[in-house]
């Protein structure tokens, strides 16, 4: 049986141009791109009429919960959620139990990922146990192909430790990433500090907790010259500071999460812990600023911060419930809502930008992973998504691929959906569902 | 006819729209006089009597009845008010009724209570009133006086003294007071 695939009738979105063309895939690679290609016998034909055909999305920031919290999600279930969301690769965050702070745990997750329907890359922790005190074995993990390091879930609180980490990481050619929140200032708050938290009687996390660490780390980058990626920026000021730093030529990049592009702190008014997340949902003007910055290129990537939790945990009081919401299955729809018809920008923030930051492109030297975020040219690894920018659908929390159900979008109508996904030439999603 | 201010403890948001007048003020006064004489005939000692008006429609009728009794007997007949909003057995079937004052000054044990209401219909208000009265002791007799009996009893309750029997249908409404008795309908505001 032929493993050929023809993606027919769509608009191919290259890095700097678009064209109506078919794409022929053979043996895991793009064989040809052109109008009205001949269809080899036995080829699987994917109808891409009305769709964008581009590099599969890459998520810089997914919590796969394995090892340790498999009741919420596993590598395999998370990968399925990623696939229906249009992702051909995800970077698994290290705040597992035990944390991914050494080569053994990293290897475990990478091995689990080999059976997954999408490519699973791994981010390692910066410090042992993510405790923020001693450096983890970054070089050992890098030897396995780990290229992104973060203590995500929390930021590295001690500036000396952060400086040391940046200095150590630099010659290894890896990138550090920071969850910016000063724990002392955040003072155990459970939602954004402001009018809404004051009215609801919930302890707040001031936006200054994020902005202060962003500012600190910009200075540390300036001091060490080491690249740094800012995770889930949530305030207008944070985005402005990172933009200014980049204009100065500092090697900084940033991402924003889908929920910070759509929801503000008034969503917490009913005390539904589904809306509890760190950093918290901010004000409407922060959401507006994030949307503007995503549209005009000041933000490099949309990253889901997909954070599954067992349902009974999200049914605890707002104070006690764990923070985090799902995102893999709906990030693309939300990105489309912000960016509109600008397909080039759409693939920049969902695929090419994050692929560069995660070092998953063909030009990045990586053992074991195929290349993502490509230009859709002959010879490229066939990690491709067929995305229908017109399809409307209603989110149903009972029908998600994720094991968990803590999506804040239940019942919402979204526009834009993945119709098909190829990972290394294998059709993982067709006609909107897993193969 | 102009709308009349509601007197009964009707649910909020409902008004009585009259269709025709059945008793004039004089006719009501004559009926009350007759009832008062019947009360006196039936009860030897007027000093044992306590006239209790049911809120809110029964109150002006009870006051008038009490005054006539005092007139006839020369005795200062005791008077009280009773609101049964919290004693009804059909509490969850009605929207909340406004509650009014209850004031019963003494222990009713061994007294003869003349319970007065304007209109007797299903009998549930009277049943609730009998429940309530037991919170003030154990009256020797409770006798029921109503200005109008419109039929349709749902419980074994019967009046002792009636001003007028007026058969009605369920979709009609009666408004009865010292100034007259009207028949009409209830309309949502």
């Amino acid at each position, binding site marked *: 049986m032929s493993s050929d695939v023809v993606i027919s009738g769509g608009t191919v979105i290259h890095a700097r141009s678009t064209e109506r063309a078919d794409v022929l895939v053979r043996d895991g690679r793009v064989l040809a791109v052109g109008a009205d290609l001949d269809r080899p016998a036995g080829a699987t034909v994917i109808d891409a009429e009305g769709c964008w055909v581009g590099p599969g999305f890459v998520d810089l920031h997914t919590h796969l919960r394995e090892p340790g919290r498999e009741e919420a999600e596993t590598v395999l279930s998370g990968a399925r959620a990623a696939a229906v969301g249009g992702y051909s690769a995800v970077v698994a965050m290290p705040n597992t139990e035990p944390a991914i702070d050494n080569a053994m745990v990293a290897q475990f997750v990478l091995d689990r990922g080999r059976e997954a329907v999408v490519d699973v890359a791994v981010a390692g922790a910066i410090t042992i146990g993510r405790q923020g005190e001693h450096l983890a074995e970054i070089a050992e993990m890098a030897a396995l192909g780990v290229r992104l390091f973060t203590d995500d879930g929390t930021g590295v609180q001690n500036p000396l430790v952060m400086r040391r980490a940046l200095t150590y990481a630099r010659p290894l050619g890896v990138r550090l990433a920071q969850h910016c929140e000063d724990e002392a200032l955040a003072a155990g708050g459970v939602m954004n500090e402001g009018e809404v938290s*004051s009215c609801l009687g*919930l302890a707040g996390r001031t936006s200054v907790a994020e902005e202060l660490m962003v500012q600190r780390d910009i200075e540390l980058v300036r001091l060490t010259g080491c690249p740094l990626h800012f995770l889930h920026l949530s305030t207008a000021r944070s985005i402005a500071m990172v933009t200014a730093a980049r204009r100065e030529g500092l090697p900084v990049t940033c991402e924003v999460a889908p929920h910070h592009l759509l929801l503000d702190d008034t969503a917490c008014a009913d005390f539904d812990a589904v809306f509890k997340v760190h950093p918290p949902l901010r004000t409407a003007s922060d959401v507006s600023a994030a949307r503007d910055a995503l549209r005009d290129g000041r933000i490099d990537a949309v990253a889901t911060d997909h954070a599954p939790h067992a349902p009974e945990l999200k049914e605890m009081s707002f104070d006690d419930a764990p923070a985090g919401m799902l995102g893999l299955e709906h990030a693309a729809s939300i990105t489309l809502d912000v960016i509109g018809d600008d397909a080039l920008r759409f693939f920049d923030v969902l695929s090419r930008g994050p692929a560069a930051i995660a070092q998953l492109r063909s030009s990045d030297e990586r053992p074991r992973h195929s290349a993502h975020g490509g230009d859709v040219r002959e010879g490229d690894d066939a990690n491709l998504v067929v995305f229908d920018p017109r399809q409307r659908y209603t989110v149903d929390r009972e029908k998600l691929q994720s094991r968990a159900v803590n999506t804040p979008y239940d019942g919402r109508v979204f526009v834009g959906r993945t119709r098909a996904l190829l990972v290394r030439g294998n059709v993982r999603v067709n006609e909107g569902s897993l193969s | 006819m102009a709308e009349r201010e509601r007197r009964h403890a009707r649910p909020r948001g409902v008004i009585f729209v009259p269709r025709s007048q059945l008793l004039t003020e004089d006719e009501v006064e004559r009926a009350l006089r007759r009832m008062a004489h019947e009360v006196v005939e039936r009860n030897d000692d007027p000093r044992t009597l306590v006239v209790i008006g049911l809120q809110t429609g029964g109150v002006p009728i009870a006051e008038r009845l009490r005054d006539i009794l005092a007139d006839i007997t020369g005795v200062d007949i005791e008077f009280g008010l009773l609101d049964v909003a919290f004693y009804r057995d059909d509490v969850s079937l009605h*929207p909340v009724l406004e509650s009014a004052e209850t004031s019963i000054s003494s222990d009713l044990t061994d007294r003869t209570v003349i319970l007065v209401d304007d209109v007797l219909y299903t009998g549930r208000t009277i049943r609730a009133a009998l429940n309530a009265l037991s919170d003030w002791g154990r009256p020797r007799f409770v006798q029921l006086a109503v200005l109008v009996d419109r039929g349709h009893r749902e419980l074994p309750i019967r009046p002792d003294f009636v001003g007028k029997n007026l058969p009605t249908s369920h979709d009609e409404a009666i408004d009865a007071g010292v100034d007259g008795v009207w028949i009409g309908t209830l309309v949502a505001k």
Partner: protein
Amino acid sequence: MDWNVGGEVIDSIAGRNLITLRDVSQQAIVEILDTAEAFAEVNARAIKKVPTLKGRVVASLFFEESTRTRLSFETAAKRLSADVLSLAVASSSVKKGESLRDTIATIEALGIDAVVMRHSASGAPEQVSRFVPHVRVINAGDGQHQHPTQGLLDVFTIRQVLAARHGTTGRESGCELFAGLKVLIVGDLRHSRVARSDVMAYTTLGATVRVCAPGTLLPVDVSQWPVEVVENFDDALGWADVVGVLRLQKERGTGSLVPSLGEFTRTHGLTWERARRLSPSTLITHPGPMNRGVEIDSRVADLDVALMERQVANGVPIRMSVLYLSLAGRAPERSTDE
């Protein structure tokens, strides 16, 4: 954002939950107060019981200790002839981290009509109401969020006293006695659910509210509250018709927010000296329990204008009123776009 955060304003709590005073209109509050007045009369009789809620089951679920409030609610329910299931969960075997849904499921299985709930987490009653929509939920205090029956009994008490001064009854006066009434709320506003309920009750009824507290005990962002923040406590005392003194919430972490209790008393305590300079008609309230000598001097607490005993006494009729309206009444038909 306005105070309402988009909720619909309701005109009556009949057949509804009472979780916050945020969306409760003036008409609804007056209805609760007037009904409470009728129940106060019931409470004055020899037999303090009416059969209104006979056959209904009210569960009292207190995750936070409070003997006084719990007894007040349970007495109210019993005087309405309801059956009461009393669960002082704080001392039971509920493990920390057990979901609210699991806890309520156990009691709900027994068939309850209403739950009166106190919890240390803001929003817990709101969450529970979503798990058991057919059960009426009455909030007896949730974290720092709301304590609606306290707010209601506070305004009920003030109305009662002011009406008596004017030779009328509370019911006859409706809410006109609150128009332009000058209310000063002082103390630990940041951590106080009573403050949030009081502010809403007083302002909805037409009063003008000022608040005064050390900087660290004011709510973090008070810009949308319908109050004026004043810094000079002594001037504000001269202005006020009613002074609502709040508890210092030591157990909620106030301790690290003010340098010492002594300093708090000096700057914002209702001391004997301050009380003596009050106009003789100024009324004083406190939700209790009082930290005598901290936010209020012992002698001040015993003055005639200090209404704490009345507040406590009014707790039962107010709670009877709330239980009666919530359980006996029926909410209007819900529209399809609920």
